[in-house]
């Protein structure tokens, strides 16, 4: 267990009688990218919220680098190295791109100057230096997603949860983002978990994939194993046929 940078055991979360997350375990190692997939309403976002502290589990615990962080707030978890991105990029609209990154780097680096040089490095890394003084609200959706990712990285996370990075992006943007993601994974000491609908992205990026359905884990394994897993196929076909009738 100690080699897992991020892990969770027995997470349960109920909303008004519905069990959105039901006894889920997960683990991510440094350098690894874990994919989290499942049909709509499977409980993926709720799970991310539980892990990152935006929601509290009814039972179960979350560990970061071996420490129990179940009781910490989202901000506290982030300062300890557990950072997430959002479905919408949630860029700070009236701050410049550079400021977006500086905000993120500040809590860990402390000094403004160091945070700024870190931000500049990452802007270079993400090839968006030209946009450094642009307010976030003026960026295209694709660029916002990239800046959102760089911003999360600026916080120097040891574990990074990425919520649907490619949703709504075109092919080119999606490829660009995938390249950035794998570069980050290779170059930085980081454990990553990605929620994504785009199977192409998941299959090409992830080392392991975990599948949720109705709040429960129905399969964990390599992308190839998952592709062939009968339970996964049933879940997706079943739910999509269910959707078609609804």
């Amino acid at each position: 267990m100690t080699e897992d940078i991020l892990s969770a055991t027995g997470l349960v979360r109920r909303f008004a009688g519905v069990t959105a997350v039901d006894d889920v375990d997960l683990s991510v190692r440094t350098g690894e990218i874990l994919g989290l997939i499942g049909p709509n309403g499977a409980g993926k976002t709720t799970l991310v919220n539980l892990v990152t502290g935006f929601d509290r589990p009814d039972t179960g615990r979350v560990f970061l680098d071996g420490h129990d962080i179940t009781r910490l707030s989202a901000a506290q978890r982030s300062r300890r190295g557990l950072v997430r991105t959002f479905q919408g990029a949630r860029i700070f609209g009236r701050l410049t791109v550079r400021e977006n990154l500086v905000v993120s780097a500040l809590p860990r680096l402390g000094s403004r100057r160091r945070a700024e040089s870190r931000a500049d490095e990452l802007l270079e890394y993400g090839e968006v230096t030209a946009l450094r003084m642009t307010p976030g609200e003026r960026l295209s959706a694709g660029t916002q997603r990239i800046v959102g990712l760089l911003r999360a990285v600026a916080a120097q996370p040891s574990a990074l949860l990425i919520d649907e990075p490619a949703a709504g992006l075109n092919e080119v943007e999606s490829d660009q983002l995938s390249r950035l993601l794998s570069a980050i994974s290779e170059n930085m000491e980081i454990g990553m978990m990605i929620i994504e609908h785009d199977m192409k992205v998941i299959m090409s990026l992830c080392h392991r994939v975990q599948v949720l359905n109705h709040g429960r884990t129905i399969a964990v394994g390599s992308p190839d194993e998952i592709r062939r897993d009968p339970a996964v196929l049933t879940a997706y076909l079943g739910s999509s046929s269910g959707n078609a009738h609804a």
Partner: protein
Amino acid sequence: MQYLIDVLSQGSLYALCALGIALTFGVMRLINFAHGEFMMVGGYVLVVAGDIPVWAALLSSVIIVGFLAVATERIAFRPVRNADPETMLVTSFAVSFLLQSLAVLLFGSLGRSVRVFPPSITGVMHIGGLNIRWLDIITVAVTVTLLVSLMAFMKTRHGVELRAAAENFTVARLLGVKANQVIGTAFAISGVFAAATSIVLAAQRGLVEPTFGTTTMLFAFIAVIVGGMGSLPGAVLGAYALGLISVTSQALLPLGLRQFRDAFIFLVVVLILLLRPEGILRGHAARVRI
């Protein structure tokens, strides 16, 4: 028991006013400080109406204030509809300031006395040792009637649209709800509530002056937030809660501390907020989705 009647009466007054504020808050996130001045205009309509029959005076008050509310929305609020809440708030300051100044110009600052109902129904009934003012009964009755009518209205097509808009304005628009129409309707109803409040208030106070609506409006505004922003039942609940707080603090504080009553009231308000930061009933406007 007597205090309970006081609470009911005071709470109903706040509730009437709070519903008007909550309606426009719900559809466009506007904290309308001019609502107090809508009430003030309603009061002056009753003053000017003078000796015409009660029902005619009341009707003209409702019509004029309703029209004023819709007109204000057209002229002042529509252009800033998509701006930040702060901008809309200050816009409502401007409207409120303008209406108050006009009232001073037209009627003077001293105020005018007014008799809304004939003397026969402004007296007191004694029932089993309790003193019940007819006015208390009227206040509660008006509140309940309007509340029931509002609930009935909410079930009609317009009402459903209004609720949808209060829930999520962008989605409602995508579903084909006409923004201008919905907001116009909300203001018209808000105006009717302002007029109703002004009638009850004028009957209770017997005096209309340029700042007629201010205090009640401020308390109702607190009720809306304490009750749950954007939630109509919340506004009503918040109003009665506030009535309860103010009546009990007046009744229970010892004489030496009674002058600090308002400090106590606001202390309790802060306590409620700390316990329930999104209001007693969590309103749609307060909900954040990640």
